[in-house]
């Protein structure tokens, strides 16, 4: 079971949370925010309140649907059987095993992991498993072995990292489970970990993605998500 905590330090900014609730974020970022919310009591409350507020302000468009069309949609629906199907939520295993350790994931990430993760082992005790969620973001699970260090790098886009297990630190601080760590292109940082760390990372730069593809062709530098 994932522990819901009142003591999470880093949260999505208000504006991002609002877009999440409105359904306006990319799939990759929505997954990241959803995973954070499952851990974070404060953001559960915040998102419930935002949803309440957004739905209360829910107005109709200036251009309405023509009445004839309105009626044909209504007829179509009323002709359908009202299946009293109980909500079937796929039971997915919550735990994945990384470096011989079982880690329990938030529901949405467990669902994604259940489709199968392909780990690539990079230099310096760092592994990554890419997951394709949409065309706008580059999403991956990143695992850093205890005592490992990533090369110093900047990003050409915004990066969000959710700490899933363990902790890591960089020049700006130390990050624990559930933390929603955001880095814009101005940061140059060098993540390192003492106890080991599993993260989910979302990079929202299609530009970098192309560059990443190019880098994939270069066998000497497989750290595609990093700019050295």
């Amino acid at each position, binding site marked *: 079971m994932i522990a819901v905590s009142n003591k999470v330090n880093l949260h999505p900014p208000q504006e991002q949370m609002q877009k999440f609730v409105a359904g306006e974020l990319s799939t990759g970022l929505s997954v990241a925010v959803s995973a954070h919310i499952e851990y974070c009591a404060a953001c559960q409350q915040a998102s*419930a309140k935002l949803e309440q507020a957004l739905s209360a302000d829910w107005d109709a468009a200036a251009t309405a649907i023509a009445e004839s069309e309105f009626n044909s949609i209504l007829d179509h629906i*009323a002709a359908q059987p009202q299946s009293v199907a109980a909500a079937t939520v796929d039971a997915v295993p919550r735990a994945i095993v990384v470096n011989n350790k079982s880690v329990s994931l938030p529901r949405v990430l467990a669902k994604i992991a259940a489709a199968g993760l392909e780990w690539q082992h990079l230099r310096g005790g760092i592994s990554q498993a890419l997951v394709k969620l949409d065309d706008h973001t580059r999403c991956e699970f990143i695992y850093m072995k205890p005592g490992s260090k990533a090369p110093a790098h900047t990003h050409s886009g915004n990066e969000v990292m959710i700490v899933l297990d363990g902790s890591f630190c960089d020049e700006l601080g130390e990050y624990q489970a559930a933390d929603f760590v955001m880095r814009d292109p101005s940061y140059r940082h060098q993540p390192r970990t003492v106890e080991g760390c599993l993260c989910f990372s979302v990079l929202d730069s299609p530009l970098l993605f192309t560059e990443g593809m190019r880098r994939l062709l270069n066998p000497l530098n497989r750290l595609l998500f990093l700019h050295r």
Partner: protein
Amino acid sequence: MVHPETQPPANPKLALLALRESASDEELLIAVGNQQSRIAFNTLFNRFSNRIFAMGMKLTRNEQLAKDLVQEAMLMVWQKAPLYDLDRGNAQGWIFALTRNRCFDLLRKIKRQPACVSADDIWPNDGDYRDLVESVDTGFMSVELEQVRACYAQLPTAQLAVIEQIYVHDRTHEEAAAELNIPLGTLKSRLRLGMEKLRTLVEAQ
């Protein structure tokens, strides 16, 4: 346009409520869920189709997709209405979350995004975190697990079983009810009573 009711409603009083334009969204939605009332559904359709269309236009910027969304979301309201109850908050919030989720999946489909994740995974229970929020409001979640464990022994077995299903095994209400082989309503009331009892016990410590 008015569809005749296909069957005499089980509860005539509710059906009459649904007929009235002044009926609340919640009364209408429950009438759709309990009695498949088409009249109640028509009224809901009148109230929500243009709002759904507006959300569709905002998120898809495409008129045809926005119309598809009206059809998909209202069909879902028709089909899922039996799962609605007042515990899920107001009807407008419920329909809002349902519409947002359908729109998200509609766009994912159009963009041919991989099917490994869907809106219902991102917003579980259509975005309903309320059960957890209530617990947090009273400071319950901040209580150490050890303390809570000591109180468990004092709960009636039936309530304890429900709490275990939801908070230990992390099941949804529907899953837990199926697992324990009890009606959903019974599960919810046992959960509520159990959590209240637990809260009282924890506070008394």
